[in-house]
């Protein structure tokens, strides 16, 4: 590390520096002791195998589920002889079905010997699993599946009869489109996987299950298409997910923060989408989708800065329109980052850069403003951000009131009160619009955040500072990777073939190849010559 070397050279100089060096070393090496949180392992007792004595098993479950009022341990007799136990969680299990298809047939007389295989035959449930340990029982019961234990058997049966209240499929709120599907992911993992499966029916769509969180045991699914996704990438995603050891995962944002490449970057390194069609499109390009139960969105890895600037609408409009809108978005991305800082730099350092007529007008409007342009910009930007934040959290009806107040405060009163000049209001307004143009909220907010250091740089060093800031951001973007894929690709490193979805939105019949991510690459996505060639003429020949 160059900076480190440089620092050492400086601090090694001279004897007078000795004292400082000591202090510095103390500062550098004063690593706090790592907190010795007991390694969150599994409860030892849960590894216990079931015994053949039902009473023992019952005692075990009663200690495990002590003080759990929602866990029901229902005891009954199979065929009026063998003692049995049905364990389930009230509210998660479809009781009607359990009564009808499990309890009812078993409580009748059974001629055959009371062994598990025979019991299986009697029960009219399509999916039945064997359970052997307490841990298995806990996993099944928590998932809503009732578990049957019986005397004389050291195994039990779990029936897939879970049923709980869930939200219906609705239109995605943060990613609305004009054309294209209107269904969005919901909180339930199973429904989300079913939406993916409905779009990609090939058995090559693999959905690997996983549970994360010591207490939450959140179900997670890793979806990919075998033969398209790079096995190394799948391995990487899986291993990053496996190393998570936290108490609970309550949303996909937590997963995102725990598996991304650079945790200090302001830029998102996973794409979060509410739309199954977007997730499917990425699956077809060889990405891996991580679905987290409890969050109505999917995480897509890897992503590039370019893919974060694409909107599903680009693909549903005609490709001329899609390309034009994409360029508009690129331009406004720069405005959202540099708008106010460029204004500050021009007004405080480079007045000769502005057209004369504009400068005269601007000078006139700035006449009453008591603050330097930098302070003025900071005030206005902060007020704008506050208004946006206030409006975002409020219900729609009150949100409108906020926007009216905002329009008055920012638009008129600030000028009349002499706090801001009208060109500054314009600059802030245009920048605000620009930041809303980012199709992904996460990118827009990253740009908004970076705007502040840029404004300071512009206020202190003018255009020089502005360029310095851009260089630093660019440097960061160029070194950033998302699951091994350079964040700026296919621009840097340049992959000429992949520019068809960057510089413009190529028509479908031109998108013959998939973008290259990492490792193995299933290059061709369609047969060549998909461009339509309808026969010319009057159709009679």
């Amino acid at each position, binding site marked *: *590390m160059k*900076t*480190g070397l*440089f*620092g050492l050279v400086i601090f090694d100089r001279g004897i007078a520096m000795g004292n400082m060096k000591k202090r*510095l070393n103390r*500062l*550098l*090496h004063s*690593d706090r002791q790592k907190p010795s949180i007991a390694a969150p392992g599994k409860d030892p007792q849960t590894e216990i195998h079931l015994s053949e004595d039902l009473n023992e098993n019952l005692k075990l479950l009663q200690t495990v589920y002590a003080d759990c009022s929602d866990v029901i341990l229902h005891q009954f007799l199979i065929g009026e002889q063998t003692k049995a136990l049905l364990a389930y969680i009230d509210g998660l299990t479809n009781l009607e079905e359990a009564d009808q298809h499990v309890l009812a047939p078993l409580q009748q007389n059974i001629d055959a010997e009371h062994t598990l295989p025979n019991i299986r035959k009697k029960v009219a449930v399509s999916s039945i699993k064997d359970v052997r340990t307490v841990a298995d029982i806990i996993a099944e019961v928590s998932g809503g599946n009732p578990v049957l234990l019986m005397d004389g058997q050291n195994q039990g049966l779990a029936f897939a009869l879970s049923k709980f209240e869930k939200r219906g499929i609705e239109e995605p709120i943060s990613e609305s489109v004009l054309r294209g599907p209107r269904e969005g992911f919901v909180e339930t993992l199973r429904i989300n996987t079913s939406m993916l499966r409905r779009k990609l029916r090939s058995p090559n769509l693999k959905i690997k299950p996983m549970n994360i969180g010591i207490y939450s045991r959140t179900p997670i699914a890793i979806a990919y298409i075998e033969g398209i996704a790079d096995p190394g990438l799948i391995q990487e995603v899986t291993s990053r997910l496996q190393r998570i050891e936290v108490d609970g995962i309550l949303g996909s944002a937590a997963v995102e923060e725990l598996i991304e490449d650079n945790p200090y970057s302001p830029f998102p390194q996973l794409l979060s989408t509410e739309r199954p069609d977007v997730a499917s499109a990425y699956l077809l390009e060889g990405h891996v989708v991580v679905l987290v139960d409890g969050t109505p969105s999917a995480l897509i890895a890897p992503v590039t800065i370019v893919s974060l600037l694409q909107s599903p609408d680009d693909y549903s409009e005609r490709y001329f329109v899609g390309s034009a809108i994409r360029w508009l978005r690129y331009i406004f991305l720069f405005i959202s980052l540099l708008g106010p800082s460029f204004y500050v730099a021009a*007004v*405080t*350092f480079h*007045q*000769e850069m502005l057209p*004369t*007529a504009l*400068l*005269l007008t*601007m*000078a*006139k409007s*700035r*006449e009453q*403003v008591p603050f*330097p*342009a930098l302070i003025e910009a900071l005030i206005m930007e902060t007020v704008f951000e506050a208004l946006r934040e206030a409006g975002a959290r409020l219900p729609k009806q009150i949100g409108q009131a906020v926007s009216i107040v905002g329009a008055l405060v920012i638009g008129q009163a600030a000028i009349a009160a002499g706090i801001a000049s009208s060109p500054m209001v314009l600059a802030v307004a245009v920048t605000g619009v620009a930041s809303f143009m980012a199709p992904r909220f996460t990118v827009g907010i990253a740009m908004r955040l970076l705007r502040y250091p840029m404004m300071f*740089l512009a*206020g*202190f*060093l*003018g255009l020089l500072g502005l360029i310095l800031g851009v260089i630093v951001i660019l440097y960061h973007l160029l070194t950033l990777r998302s699951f091994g894929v350079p964040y700026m690709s296919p621009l840097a490193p340049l992959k000429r073939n992949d520019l068809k979805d960057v510089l413009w939105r190529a028509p479908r019949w031109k998108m013959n190849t998939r973008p290259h991510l990492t490792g193995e690459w299933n290059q061709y996505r369609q047969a060549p010559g998909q461009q339509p060639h309808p026969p010319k003429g009057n159709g009679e020949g």
Partner: protein
Amino acid sequence: MDTTKRKTVLLLLFFSIHSLLLAGCWDRTEVNDLAIITAAGIDLTEDRYPELSVNIYVTSQSGTGGQQIGGMSDSSGGGANVSVVRSAPGLTLADATSKLQRMLPRKVFWGHDEVFIFGERLAKQGIGEPIEFLTRHPAPRERGNVFVSKGLAKDVLMLPPSIERTIADKLREVAKSQTGLNITLKELAQMMAGKSKAAIVPWLEIQPGFKNQTPFPFIMGSAVLKNGKMVGRINEYATRGVMWLRNEINLATITFSPKNTQGYVSFELKKSSTALVPHIDGDNWSITARIETLNDIVENTTDLNLMEPNNVKELETELGNDIEHRMKLALTKAQNMNADIFGFADAFYRKYPKAWKRAQDRWDEIFPKLKVKLETRTVISRPGMTGKSIIKPE
């Protein structure tokens, strides 16, 4: 990255951010701390020192008072667009600028000075010194327009900017309209430093307003400078000839009365290009000016039938003659003043660099006797939207 390294980096980042703050913002100037000069005039005082007058755009609404500092007062008044004129003499222009700064509460800002006017007396004495300052100092715009004014330059600055926002705006727009010369500071400096040391600058006169109208500045021909000193004037008609020869003509309406007819025909210039081709034949120096123009007829008050190709042919020849006449007039004037304002010297230098080197000291002898051959090729592209003149039925 282990913790130690990360801490080192963070510490260094912390220090470097503070060094950024140490740099401060000394160069920072808010727009409302600037005295924006829109036009500058340079005169010669009675005791032969340069005097700098500047027209400053008043941005504050309350500043319409027009205080009398340095004997100068403000102009227009009342309207939204107000400017004040301040002037200060100095040993040099730089000195005058610093004296001017003392009179102003705001920082003198040259960045938007679009017009430089030299007073007649200064022009006759020589504009070398002011040009030296204006080209060396980084702030004044080299694309600003230059003028020489009859009388004092500061009188022009004090005129009200009728129609336009500032007087500078007005002068610049007039120069840009291409009916007269449009010479920028850069072009002037180039001409003065060129092989011929001769320059041409538009000549400003103040037109007194008729009745209760305000007086306004007007470009009346041009001033000819030799070695930085004004040696004479060329009237408007001949200035057009200079522009033809300098390949600077863009907008022209030429009206003349064709032979054997009554009334006039007016032409509008569409396109024109001039090429200078120098020749040296022994001691015989000559130059050929090839002019090609494309014109439209926009008015015809004669009996000529313009649908008749022969008539058009005839008009083309006569148009060429008229253009040549203007150029000859300009040539005679320039040769009499011995000021090569057409860039002939540069043309010779480019084609015959060796011969030029030998003869460059004799250029002042060669130029007045230089033979200039004019080859004009005029084309009338459109005779207009009507055929025969509708007001002269046969």
